[in-house]
């Protein structure tokens, strides 16, 4: 579409102008103009030949019967009667009038309701108001954004960071800022939905490898290399996209092996740390710290401030060479209002909490491990736990699920309802099944929290066992 002016598309629009030659520039322009004229002239003629009489046209219009804009959704869908959380979603929360232990929201470090964080947000409103009233380019860059970006870059030990206003749009904009039509992207089949949307937007060729299967990735890379003619390979960028801890499975990625392969096949790497940032590694610096790999081997690290940091938004860190590009080409960065200053301030406060508290991570890892062990004992009750034992996200799958997907989901829904009624907030992971790139097995997604106690974990197991004996036998 020639009239779509998005900066990322300069290269598409002025496709011919690649070389630094002015003559080329003019020649291309002339050629494109004549081509356009030619096409235009031709299509004009064609339409004349095919034209119908006005009456015929009116009849066609009369007869056309479009589909309704939307279909009526089934009225018992859970999304139409969502759980309502009254008050703060802290370590405990009130769901539909039940006071529950919280194992459902992604408040791993209990920062979402930490008084220090709240206080910082309040101070920020007193100084900046609520909204920023503009995108980053147009007076929407508030000094706290710069402060947060600097802090994040320093925290991760990278050159530069850029902050997005929404977690989802961060990775979904970062991928198409680099990967374009004609490029190829290798990606784990368990990748979260935001990554999938980023892949769609890039219009590159996508190859899914089996979840955490390095051999399968190698096979795909080799196949691709063999297939590609060498001249084309010279201009085809390759990317590898992975998550630190997969939201959809709770598993950790085998980062060193993946980076090895990426290096061997000269793939650039994009690492989504939405769960692992602030939860993995001795000091919360994520999966790179956990495996002790050099962070510069990863081209771009994308993180979220919506889970561990208890705020809203997302960020990218990397070398200036990489990150700077997004300030002109990240769609969600350029064409959306910047993150409200109060949420920026909250993220800064949370980040400082992590830095101030060197034992926080080891406590969290201990709790995650304990919870994992406890959940592993639910085999007899009919559950299988999946996920990295020290990671904060676990999935509980049914060992003997009903064949029918609808029944399977309904069963998990019932178990979740039972748990909530009995003081433990556990919910099924929500997916849009028809549009996920790969089918997702229904599960209960359980999140750990740094404040969990042994006694609370015992309650959780007790309630889950009761639910199992009620619904699974």
């Amino acid at each position, binding site marked *: 579409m020639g009239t*779509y002016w998005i900066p990322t598309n*300069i290269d598409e*629009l002025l496709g011919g*102008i690649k070389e*630094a030659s*002015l003559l080329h520039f003019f020649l291309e322009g002339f050629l494109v103009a004549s081509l356009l004229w030619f096409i235009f002239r031709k299509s004009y003629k064609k339409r004349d030949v095919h034209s*119908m009489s006005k009456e015929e*046209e009116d009849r*066609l*219009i009369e007869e056309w019967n*479009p*589909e309704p804009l*939307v*279909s*009526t*959704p089934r009225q018992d869908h859970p*999304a139409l009667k*969502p759980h*309502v*959380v009254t008050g703060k*979603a*802290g370590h405990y929360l009130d769901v539909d009038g039940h006071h529950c232990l919280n194992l459902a929201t992604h408040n791993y470090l209990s920062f979402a309701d930490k008084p220090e964080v709240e206080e910082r*947000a309040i101070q920020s*409103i*007193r*100084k900046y*108001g*609520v*909204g920023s*009233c*503009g995108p*980053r*380019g147009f*007076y929407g*860059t508030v*000094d706290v*954004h*710069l402060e947060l970006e600097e802090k994040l870059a320093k925290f991760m030990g990278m050159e530069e960071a850029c902050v997005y206003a*929404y*977690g*989802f749009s961060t990775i979904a904009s970062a991928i198409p800022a*680099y990967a374009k039509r004609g490029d190829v992207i290798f990606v784990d089949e368990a990748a979260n939905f935001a990554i999938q*949307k980023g892949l769609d937007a890039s219009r590159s060729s996508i190859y899914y490898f089996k979840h955490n299967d390095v051999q399968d990735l190698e096979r795909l890379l080799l196949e691709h290399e063999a297939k590609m003619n060498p001249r084309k390979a010279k201009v*085809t960028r390759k990317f590898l996209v992975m998550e630190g801890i997969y939201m959809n499975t709770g598993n950790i990625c085998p980062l060193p092996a993946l980076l090895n392969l990426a290096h061997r096949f*000269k793939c*650039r790497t994009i690492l989504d740390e939405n769960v692992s940032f602030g939860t993995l590694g001795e000091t919360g610096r994520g999966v790179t710290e956990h495996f002790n790999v050099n962070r510069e081997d990863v081209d771009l690290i994308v993180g979220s401030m*919506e*889970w561990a940091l*208890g705020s*809203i938004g997302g960020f990218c860190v990397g*070398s200036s*060479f990489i990150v700077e590009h997004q300030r002109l080409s990240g*769609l969600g960065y350029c064409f*959306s*209002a910047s*993150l409200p200053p*109060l*949420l920026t301030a909250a993220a800064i406060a949370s980040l400082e909490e992590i830095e101030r508290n060197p034992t926080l991570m080891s406590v969290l890892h201990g709790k995650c491990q304990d919870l994992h062990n406890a959940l592993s004992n639910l085999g007899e009750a009919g559950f299988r736990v999946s996920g990295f034992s020290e990671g904060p996200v676990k999935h509980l799958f049914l060992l003997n699920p009903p064949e029918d997907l609808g029944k399977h989901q309904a069963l998990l829904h019932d178990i979740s309802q039972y748990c909530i009624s009995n003081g433990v*907030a556990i919910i099924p992971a*929500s997916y849009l099944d028809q549009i996920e790139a790969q089918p997702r097995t229904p599960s209960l997604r359980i999140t750990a929290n740094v404040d969990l106690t042994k006694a609370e974990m015992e309650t959780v197991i007790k309630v889950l066992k009761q639910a199992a004996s009620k619904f699974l036998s």
Partner: protein
Amino acid sequence: MATEGLLDGARQLKIHGANGKHSPNVANGKANGVKLVRKNGLSPGVRNGMATDVHSKGKEKIRSKESFEEVPLYTAVMTYMGFYLLVVLGYLNQFLFAPPVAKEKNRKGYVPLYNRFEQFYSRYVYRRIRDCWNRPICSVPGAEVVLKDRITNDYGWTFEYTGLEKKCLNLGSYNYLGFAEASGPCAEESIESIKKYACSLCSTRHELGTSPIHLELEETTARFLGVEAAITFGMGFATNALNLPCILSPGCLVISDEKNHASLILGLRLSGATIRVFKHNNMKDLEKVLRNAVVQGQPKTHVPWKKILIVAEGVYSMEGSIVHLPEVIALKKKYKAYLFLDEAHSVGAMGPRGRGVVDYFGVNPHDVDVLMGTFTKSFGSAGGYIAGSKELVDYFRVNSHAACYASSMSPPVAQQIITSMRIIMGEDGTHEGQKRVMQLARNTRYFRRRLHQMGVIIYGNEDSPVVPLLVYMFSKIGAVVRTLVSKKIAAVGVGFPATPLMEGRIRFCLSAAHTKEQLDNVLDILEDIAERLGLKYSQLPRYKGVIQYEDEIE
């Protein structure tokens, strides 16, 4: 401030504009004692005032003036020449000097990450006026804003902060109704909501991300817009990008205005539907495309389209134009298409009751199938909504990508919207909201008329609070923005590639928070700049009388 050649050029011109305070026209008008007569009547929306049966009157309205004056040929030629000159100089520069930029390390043998022209453009063309964007602020973006001062010692490659601050009149932020405030009811109630709900629920709407404040926000939004239901999301951009794909599929046709926002385009692309573009606000072209689509069906097969969706915006943020809503609705009814209307810049800012372009034209909100808008602008908050029939909203509750996978809106952000929306509706028991809506309408008219009189070319509708002032030449964007900032006015410059190459512009966003004195100050300074930098391109006859602020009232 940056001291580049361009600015020096501007300085030289200063000598000529000695008495730039009053334009001859204004003086003339005063002498003759001619008072302004509103030839074109009042704005249609405003004319109906608070009338309740606005719907039936839709048809007899007189359209308020919208103008897109053509660029004079000489300027067009100069603009192209100027741009080519910049490109040539850029190539020379690139050839002669190694750029002081970060190079990639340890990626030998990798396919280059960036397209060469793109890189060249951002380094050697955009960089020249790079200081005009991303200027950090350190205050609330209200009627005035405090800019963090920065300088560049290497022609825009890098910036340093001087530690100084500069308070400017703010014509850059989308603060249409002046609700960007650090005190007052909105701020206070938002603070209360943090105490009650904290900053985030760390969950999605499908999971545990729904709190009473979200339900209240959605109810209030639906009431405000006069429709059955609404659903809200944490980001306006994502509202478009993640919801349009749910209602479209391959085999559907989208007819999209050529000036539509990037978020709409992204959403449409993700949907897999076929996209056709109609000329900006051109109803003839829209009808042509529509008619052709229904008659011809899908390409090659001629199978009829599954459905046709027209996508348009209320107020176009780069053009300052207003959608021709009554005509669009008539066309969509005639051809059985659906209408998706993005009211990002119009909700709150347009119409006698601030309910957006639907209110402005007095059309029935039910005639728009999908009402979309954002809370970033008039409400001084963040996020977006989709509103319409209950069936539609229920469909989004179930199928929206954002409802299922993106985090729910932050409670203080939601509270800011609720409070400001109540104020606009007068539910707080005051006339504060109504006053702001009127003040914005008046400021808009006054500012636009004065600019017209000055002889500069401005685009768009006389009732649109977004005012693009055409400067055409790439380098003039920089010169004007810099001069304005040096005179303590913050405005936004927009150039290629966000606009066509030819149409560099400065954009002013008016606000109800601006006073007449502030606007007069800006206008005086603009008069001066327009004279010195040669921005008076308009060849239309100018109004000779005195434009009275008080006349801009209904």
